[in-house]
């Protein structure tokens, strides 16, 4: 599992039925690379989460029929940004707040 920060949500109305109506979250790693994950735990922007990838992501949804390859497994209780090398404030979060 990898550690990522939630930076927002994605609205994606036109989607395959295999994705269901699950929330999609926009995540970012410490290098600023962005990812999209299905979210069964209702994470909020700014939360640090761990994500499950590959086929385990489908089991993490509780239903292997969900067609995802990245799922948020849980919200980390305490995670300092300086725990991660090269972590920096997310520009996308600041833009959302503005």
């Amino acid at each position, binding site marked *: 599992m990898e550690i990522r920060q939630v930076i927002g949500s994605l609205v994606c109305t036109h989607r395959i039925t295999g994705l269901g109506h699950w929330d999609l979250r926009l995540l970012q790693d410490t290098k600023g690379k962005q990812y999209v994950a299905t979210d069964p735990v209702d994470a909020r922007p700014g939360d640090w989460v761990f994500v499950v990838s*590959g086929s385990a992501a489908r089991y993490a949804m509780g239903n292997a029929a969900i067609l995802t390859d990245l799922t948020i497994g849980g919200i980390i209780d305490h995670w300092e940004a300086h725990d991660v090398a090269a972590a920096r404030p997310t520009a996308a979060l600041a833009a959302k707040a503005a």
Partner: protein
Amino acid sequence: MKICQVERPLVSTNRIPGFEHKHLLVVRDGSTQQVAVDAVGCVPGDWVICVGSSAAREAAGSKEYPSDLTIVGIIDHWPPETEAAGPRGAG
């Protein structure tokens, strides 16, 4: 399988039910941190071997367990020169 060093426990109260109450650990593989499910009972500082993909699910308990990285063994002796790669000193 890859060789990682255990850094510390990862506390996540709000987690998907599929993870049950198994211990999650932050492990370091070179310069990157990852989260692994602990199937053997290790402590911070241990050098361990981790499996990925579908083997990780079965190693963590069942084929439906949602892990993509599971610790499956603690290495008895690991050459100390490899520790120079990590930030942990003589710890």
